[in-house]
């Protein structure tokens, strides 16, 4: 038979005009439908291809549904596949027509060719038309019994699809039981793997309302079953291996022999060519050994080289995923990777997302032995053609300088950057020099002499300008022309667009004034006048505040604005250790890539991660707000530590919010609140003497000092079971699974600290309050305890991690609870108990 139209044989790839073309196709298909002439399949193929190509580019070809179905009565497998594809795409929209489809799909399910049987069954289950589920049962049932494993594999997945269309139909047909027996007895590994995947999902979803499903779900994690899978893991394909490894992660081993058995079984998986298998294995190893510190350490050593190999042998995308995970491990155990620093050297051609992670890695593993090489390497990147990487490298050098004790060589390097006369290099370096001076004021002499030589005209970036101005104010006595540079800058007040810079100008002018009053007086006057007239609220407020404090008493003003310098001992880490732990628990998941635990970005279905990051960036300044947002509380706690040691709050924020994650909220959004905090913090030093002043400090104080000073409303007292018990494994399991319900920091009274010389005494003390210790450790000054308690008359547990630092007399506690609602009450009980420690 001749083809109906020449044009159909050679479909033009150009854009079809739409409707008329579709109508054309329709009539052509109709002509072919009944034909049995030789070569008709060829013509059909061309037409089908055309239909599907339209579908692919987004043209609606659902109107030829009927004709497609009619034409699909063929034995040509490629035609069948095209038809299945088409039907799968449009069946949902045409439930009436899909009844037609069912007919021929059901017939195909009985075809003698196993491939057609399989494909037809897959398409049948993929139709997902709810009112047609009854037609699925027969084909699925026989598919599960098919003698060809390809068909069985598809049937098993089909059961899962059926479950999602109609759970009750699936359960009533007792498919889960069939799957279970297939899982245990089928000879084909892929069938077994698909059974496992399907059963995991079905039973997890059923578990909420069925006792039996709950038991079945638990039984998947039973020892015989786990070993059944692990012993034959090599028979499975790589993806199924991932599935089994993920199951193994949830398994709670009975004893250490069990742990070693599993690790021995899985050790060669670490050398698998598929990175996903390697990473899943690594997760099993890490989770299994969490409680065995020294073995855990050995695990790090063991997994190190496979991971490093993966980084350097895969595509950049794979490297990125692996590096994100390595980053987590490196941060947890930098010393293990310290000698492998060369793995993280950046090659010129790597994409910048890989380079950025490598820079973070180099920063994390820098220690006494390798700092010199690492910094030398980083300095080469500063001259890199890629400006963003050059900047990141300089920041990395700065971070290393801040985390090291011996910064001698690094300071020289940093100062050399200033000689490169590249504006962005200078800008980044100035910010770093400022941070460095805040931590190591002893370097001021060397730094200031170099910084003094930089012309402020060459610096445009607000952050760098602010840093320079801060140094001018702070070291006004060492820089002979500081007042004049400031004066110059103040005279150009109107041209200064950044509020941050103007705020710093005000403060620097004040500081300079206290040190060199006669030279600065005029400039300060201009600055305050310009500031008070400033349209920016913060600038205006600060200028007015300075003005009034000066008016009240110059000495008080000096104590407020320019208190004696105190070196910052440690800058706030961007992530609390709690968050890091959570991410670690979620190893081999998206959390690692985002550097955030999943509860911060996945809980709400339609909520993008952007919204969450906004919450993170906004430091709540009222207690009500903070009580809702756990991560924000964490940040706030960190911020307070900082505030105690520095009066330059906003700089610090800039440093700490700059963790390289793509999802950090823009820094600007938190500016206002941090400014307020800064004011508030300047307050306490002065409040004693300025209470009568016209300026009401109390308001500011109340605003700035949030949770810590506001007493928590006392919740109803909680009764604890004095004879509670929990075995360590169950504790570990729970600790891994439960979210943190509360994190607190308390001061421990001096008597308590004294009594802590015998850590056992705390354990006894807490026990007398029905809070039991399950594990403890540490050496002075850091002690770590794990406690648990149980609600009276109810099997509801509270787990607590308590870290006490005896030198700072602080206790940090983290509470996890079965019942979130009473966790606050428990925290209160815990605090009360702890506060009585050491008391007679």
């Amino acid at each position, binding site marked *: 038979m001749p083809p109906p139209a020449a044009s159909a044989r050679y479909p033009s790839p150009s854009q079809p005009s739409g409707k008329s073309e579709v109508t054309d196709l329709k009539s052509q298909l109709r002509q072919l439908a009944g034909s049995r002439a*030789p070569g*008709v399949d*060829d013509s059909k193929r061309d037409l089908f*291809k055309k239909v599907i190509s339209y579908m*692919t580019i987004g043209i609606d070809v659902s109107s030829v549904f009927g004709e497609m179905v009619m034409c699909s009565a063929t*034995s*040509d*497998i490629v035609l069948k*596949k095209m038809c299945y594809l088409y039907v799968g795409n449009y069946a949902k929209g045409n439930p009436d027509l899909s009844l037609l489809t069912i007919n021929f799909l059901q017939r195909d399910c009985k075809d003698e*060719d*196993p*491939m057609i049987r399989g494909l037809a069954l*897959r398409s049948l289950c993929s139709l*997902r038309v709810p009112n047609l589920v009854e037609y699925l049962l027969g084909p699925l049932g026989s598919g599960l019994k098919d003698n060809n*494993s390809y068909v069985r594999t598809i049937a098993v997945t089909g059961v899962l*699809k059926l479950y999602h269309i109609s759970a009750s139909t699936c359960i009533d047909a007792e498919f889960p039981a069939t799957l279970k027996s297939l899982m245990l007895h089928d000879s*084909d590994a*892929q069938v077994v793997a698909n059974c496992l995947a399907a059963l995991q*999902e079905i039973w*997890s979803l059923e578990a909420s309302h069925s006792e039996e499903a709950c038991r079945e779900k*638990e039984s998947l994690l039973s020892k015989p079953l786990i070993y059944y899978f692990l012993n034959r893991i090599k028979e499975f394909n790589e993806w199924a291996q*991932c*599935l089994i490894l993920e199951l193994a992660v*949830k398994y709670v081993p009975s004893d250490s022999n069990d742990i070693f058995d599993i690790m021995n079984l899985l050790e060669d998986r670490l050398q*698998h060519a598929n*990175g*996903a298998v390697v*990473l*899943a294995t690594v997760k099993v190893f890490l989770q299994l050994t969490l409680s065995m*510190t020294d073995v855990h350490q050995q695990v790090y050593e063991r997994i190190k080289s496979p991971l490093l*190999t993966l980084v*350097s*042998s895969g*595509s950049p995308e*794979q490297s990125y*995923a692996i590096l994100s995970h390595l980053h987590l491990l490196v941060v947890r155990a*930098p*010393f293990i990777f310290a000698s492998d620093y060369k793995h993280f*050297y950046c*090659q*010129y051609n790597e994409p910048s997302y890989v380079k950025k992670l490598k820079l973070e890695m180099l920063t994390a593993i820098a220690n006494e032995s390798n700092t010199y090489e690492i910094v030398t*390497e980083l300095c*080469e990147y500063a001259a890199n*053609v890629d400006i963003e990487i050059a900047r990141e490298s300089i920041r990395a050098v700065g971070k290393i300088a801040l985390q090291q004790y011996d910064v001698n060589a690094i300071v020289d390097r940093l100062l050399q950057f200033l000689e490169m006369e590249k504006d962005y290099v200078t800008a980044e370096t100035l910010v770093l020099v400022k941070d460095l001076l805040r931590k190591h004021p002893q370097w001021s002499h060397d730094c200031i002499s170099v910084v003094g030589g930089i012309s402020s005209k060459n610096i445009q970036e607000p952050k760098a300008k602010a840093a320079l101005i801060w140094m001018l104010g702070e070291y006004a006595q060492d820089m002979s022309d500081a007042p004049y540079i400031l004066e110059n800058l103040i005279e150009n007040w109107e041209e200064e667009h950044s509020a941050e810079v103007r705020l710093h100008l005000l403060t620097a002018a004040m500081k300079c004034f206290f040190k060199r009053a006669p030279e600065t007086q005029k400039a300060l006057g201009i600055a305050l006048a310009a500031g008070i007239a400033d349209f920016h609220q913060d600038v205006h407020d600060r200028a007015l505040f300075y003005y009034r404090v000066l008016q009240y008493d110059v000495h008080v003003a000096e104590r407020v604005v320019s208190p004696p310098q105190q070196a910052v001992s440690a800058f706030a880490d961007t992530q609390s250790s709690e968050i890091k732990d959570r991410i670690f628990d*979620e190893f081999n998941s*998206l959390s690692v890539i985002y550097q955030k635990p999943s509860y911060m970005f996945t809980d709400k279905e*339609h909520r993008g991660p*952007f919204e969450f990051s906004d919450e993170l960036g906004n430091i709540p300044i009222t207690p009500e707000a903070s009580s809702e947002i756990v991560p924000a509380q964490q940040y706030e706690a960190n911020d307070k530590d900082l505030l105690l040691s520095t009066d330059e709050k906003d700089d610090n924020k800039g440093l700490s919010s700059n963790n390289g994650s793509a*999802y950090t909220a823009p820094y600007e959004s938190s500016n206002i609140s941090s400014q307020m905090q800064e004011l508030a913090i300047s307050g306490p030093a002065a409040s004693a003497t300025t209470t009568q002043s016209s300026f009401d400090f109390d308001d500011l104080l109340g605003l700035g000092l949030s949770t810590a000073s506001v007493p928590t409303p006392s919740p109803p007292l909680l009764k604890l079971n004095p004879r509670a018990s*929990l*075995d*360590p494994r*169950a504790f570990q*399991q729970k600790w891994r*699974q439960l979210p943190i319900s509360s994190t607190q920091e308390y001061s421990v009274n001096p008597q308590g600290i004294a009594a802590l010389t015998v850590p056992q005494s705390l354990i006894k003390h807490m026990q007398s309050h029905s809070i039991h210790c*399950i594990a*403890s*450790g*540490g050496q002075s000054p850091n002690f*770590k305890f794990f406690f648990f308690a149980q609600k009276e008359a109810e099997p509801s547990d509270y787990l607590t991690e308590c870290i006490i630092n005896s030198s700072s007399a602080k206790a940090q506690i983290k509470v996890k609870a079965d019942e979130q609602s009473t966790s606050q009450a428990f925290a209160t009980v815990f605090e009360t108990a702890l506060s009585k420690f050491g008391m007679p």
Partner: protein
Amino acid sequence: MNRLFVCFHGNGRRKQASNQGEGITRQSCDSIRREMLQCIFLLSDSGEVMLEKQLTGHRVDRSICAWFWDQPDSFKSLPVIASPTHYLFQIVRDGITFLACTQVEMPPLMAIEFLCRVADVLSDYLGGLNEDLVKDNFIIVYELLDEMIDNGFPLTTEPNILREMIAPPNLVSKMLSVVTGNASNVSDTLPSGAGSCVPWRPTDPKYSSNEVYVDLVEEMDAIVNRDGELVKCEVYGEVQMSSQLTGFPDLTLSFANPSVLEDMRFHPCVRFRPWESHQVLSFVPPDGQFKLMSYRVKKLKNTPLYVKPQITSDSGTCRVSVLVGIRSDPGKTIESITLSFQLPHCVSSADLSSNHGTVTILSNKICTWTIGRIPSDKTPCLSGTLALETGLERLHVYPTFKVGFKIMGIALSGLRIEKLDLKTIPPRLYKGFRAQTRAGEFDVRL
């Protein structure tokens, strides 16, 4: 670093003994596995959706591609992206973006690794990857995806198995001309799987002549820093094989000096124990071409070539001279030597020439010097001047020179194959061995 060592107390264990029932009441809140990948898109280099494959009941609207394409480049290039509604995984191969979407937590590497496999398989099937190839063969692509992933979970990605289920495009047309309109041409060989525990090998291939080739393919990665110091020099190598052997061959490959190898990764066919105990690769090979193992040899002392760049700048012009020569003779000819570098943006014009080979400067300021082989009578030298933008006195941003070379017949790591044994020797067996080394990431910084 403050490490807190935690030990379990004895009393905890006692409690466990007295209260066995405790563990059962624990709630487990392990996450529910849902379909993993929900949809795969193939985008052309202009952002056009070439192909869309929905994998689950949760349809992903293709508007997500438009959203993705509109993101700023620095964000869009990330392999894992969170869109307002989905997590996106992407890899880019030859201008084609493979984009996968999911709404649930899943191992990111699994998604990326899977996409890499899809790209490999497609390029294998289509004989390369580009927009036209994908568009012309989209039916094949659909067929492949259909077998590679079901309900969002990866299924079969082994090329040898796929090849049996879906004939590659040229074969399809060939077959069609022979058996027009006939029943499925592949169903007879549908991998039965049952009874076979070698998922990577077809059931019973038959060849009239049996051939097996082993290639050592190595890439040298090196960094020479500004002081001319070799800060990193290592070789990444692969043992690539091509096997056409009848039946169920059992092979053993041994090296003369396996101790140089580090960080090995093996094809699933390699048995782990013989390697552990004797450093011998024992395996039943897949049919056709495959990568048997990859390895790394670290801390090499020397690169075969040296590159000595020098730049001096003076009042707005820079004098450049780069010398390239043989540092340690590998014993075989070093071929295809190239040197390329990006001229800094502040260079307004460049006048570079060489005494050997050709120098080209592209409009994007990438300068490539093609040297070929090192002549015996002179040292290749690139020299000339760079004019800087007005106002600049000196050069502050320095280029990195990327070195390329190829050496046939030798593995620079020093790894040598000792022998390849077959347990049962088939008739007309031919074994072949080759080696080559080329430059991987060989950076010389200035």
